């Protein structure tokens, strides 16, 4: 077996806060010990609510945030502290697509120029760029006639296709997709999801997929990490995670998605958590979920549970729901 394309080992990204007048300062542990593997051609989803660290993890992978500790390996090579020319070279292999395509495109640059920009930076001759742009437009399902238009002439769905085409320009192996369909209208979302599935199948791309929309995650991902306050609450294959979530947070999160089916929605048991997400500035001691957990016991406030194998095939960080004697 070859090594996974992307390996993340005990990643921590901490931010020091500067002290303002009358403020205490402190450290935000945005990502606090996350590990996962992503194989070529597969999709791993990071799910969770605001402040869970899903975007920070992704930004650390592409080098937009600096890891405080831990390691990120791409194709077996440690890229945790890659900078400068080294990091620029990685851009051929790792690309990112953001949520809002309107913000990701230069409004004064033609579609063709936007898509060609990574090739220009990589020093491709003009003729090759032009040919590749035509290929890419076709690949993402856009008519060649759009090449000379400005982003303002395109719909949101078309703009996201342009952003995807640009990300594909240098034939990357890993795409980080940060809420790629969240800003799109419902009737357009499925078009873009279908495109992503097709591209993965045809090009063997690996996706690190960030989304708060769990029905989208279930559809596109092979595996998922449920994050809470910078730590992994549960991880596992999609089927196991969606059919038999074990961690009380995963269970609550899944039961909180309203299903587009009134009858099913009335009949299902809903777990409604009390309280708010704690501030990442002052996380609870012990298990990060302890302040909202419906099944907590005394020891949960005393120590942080580590991930352990569960009966349903996932790994969960919970003293009560996973046998902590089988650490993973």
């Amino acid at each position, binding site marked *: 077996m070859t090594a996974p394309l992307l390996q993340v080992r005990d990643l921590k990204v901490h931010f020091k806060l500067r002290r303002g007048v009358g403020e205490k300062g402190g450290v935000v542990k945005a990502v606090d010990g996350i590990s996962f593997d992503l194989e070529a051609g597969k999709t791993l989803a990071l799910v969770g*609510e605001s402040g869970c660290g899903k975007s920070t993890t992704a930004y650390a992978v592409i080098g937009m945030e600096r890891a405080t500790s831990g390691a990120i390996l791409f194709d077996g090579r440690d890229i945790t502290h890659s900078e400068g020319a080294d990091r620029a070279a990685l851009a051929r292999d790792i690309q990112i697509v953001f949520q809002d395509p309107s913000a990701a495109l230069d409004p004064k640059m033609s579609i063709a120029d936007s898509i060609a920009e990574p090739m220009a930076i990589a020093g491709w001759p003009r003729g090759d760029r032009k040919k590749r742009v035509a290929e890419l437009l076709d690949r993402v399902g856009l008519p060649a006639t759009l090449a000379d238009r400005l982003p303002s002439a395109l719909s949101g769905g078309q703009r996201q296709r342009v952003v995807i085409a640009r990300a594909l320009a240098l034939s990357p192996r890993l795409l980080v997709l940060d809420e790629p369909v969240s800003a799109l*209208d*419902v009737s357009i979302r499925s078009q873009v999801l279908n495109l992503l599935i097709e591209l993965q199948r045809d090009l063997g791309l690996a996706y690190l997929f960030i989304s708060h929309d*769990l029905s989208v995650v279930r559809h*596109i991902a092979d595996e998922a990490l449920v994050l809470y306050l910078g730590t992994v609450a549960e991880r596992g294959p999609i089927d196991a995670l969606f059919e038999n979530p074990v961690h009380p947070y995963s269970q609550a999160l899944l039961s*909180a998605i*309203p299903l*587009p089916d*009134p009858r099913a929605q009335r009949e299902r048991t*809903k777990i409604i958590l009390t309280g708010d997400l704690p501030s990442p500035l002052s996380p609870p001691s012990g298990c990060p979920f302890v302040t909202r957990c419906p099944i907590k016991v005394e020891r949960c406030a005393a120590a942080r549970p580590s991930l352990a194998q569960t009966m349903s095939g996932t790994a969960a960080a919970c003293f009560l729901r996973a046998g902590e004697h089988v650490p993973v």
Partner: protein
Amino acid sequence: MSAGAPVLAIDDLVVEIAGNRIVDGVSLSVERGRIRAIVGESGCGKSLTALSILGLLPRAAKVAAGSIRLGARELTGLDEAALAQVRGNEATIIFQEPIASLNPLMRVGAQVAEALILHRGLTMAAAREQAIDMMARVGIPDPARRAMQYPFELSGGMCQRIMIASALICRPSLLIADEPTTALDVTIQAQILELMRTLRREVGAAIVLITHDMGVVADLADDVCVMYGGRIVESGPVDAIFAAPRHPYTRLLLATIPKLDGARKTALRTIEGMVPSAGAWPDGCRFRTRCPLADGDCARVPPLSAVAAGHEAACWHVDRAEALA
């Protein structure tokens, strides 16, 4: 529950921006204790319909025709002073961004109490007491202490509870909720949906729920209007609309959403093309440029017609919609 005359009755409402009919002939009604969702994608006219009820349309837009009745009273044509008497009193509205809706420089308790002082002439002390009661009812822990805090000290979910408390403090007969949970995290959304369900039973107000999320509609609404291109294309009880949608747009829209029990990594149903921008709609049925069933008939505007008890669809081909998805 649905006894008597509707609390809100909108009849043939037309809202125009620069001569374009952005809302084109919308009619709907909501009874006491019922929740009527208006669902659709961006630009479908759902928010403008909601804003027009309380005279809150942006400057460029105006109600060009139609009637909006709150109980026995006609709201269109009321002047600003008369509308100010209605707003926050008989009819209230909450928005997507609770933090943006609250005054950042005013304690939240005072913002909840404000309508009582304004509309009921209560003293600050009496209003404060009622405000704290209402804050407790919307699930704010330690309301007396929270009342003294500013919006920035509260979470998004708590701010939305404050908005709901201030919207309900005068016991309005109508509450308009414009994407009330869209900006919230999913576990907080679940709390607010649960709260709205409880309050609906207790308060008995008629609720208009504006959303783009079919899950939220299924969770909370009794009845739903599906809008496309400024018109209602389908309307009826939620159970009927979700179980047997008859308009091709509703049918396809529901089919594009990945199901939690569907096959994974397969091609999802799509709707061709894009949502046309306002004013760029085709003549006749506005969905016809994207509709797989469209033919020559669709050049004429299809009327909203009954397809079952209480269930209406605006399509010349309702009988063939079932074959779509």
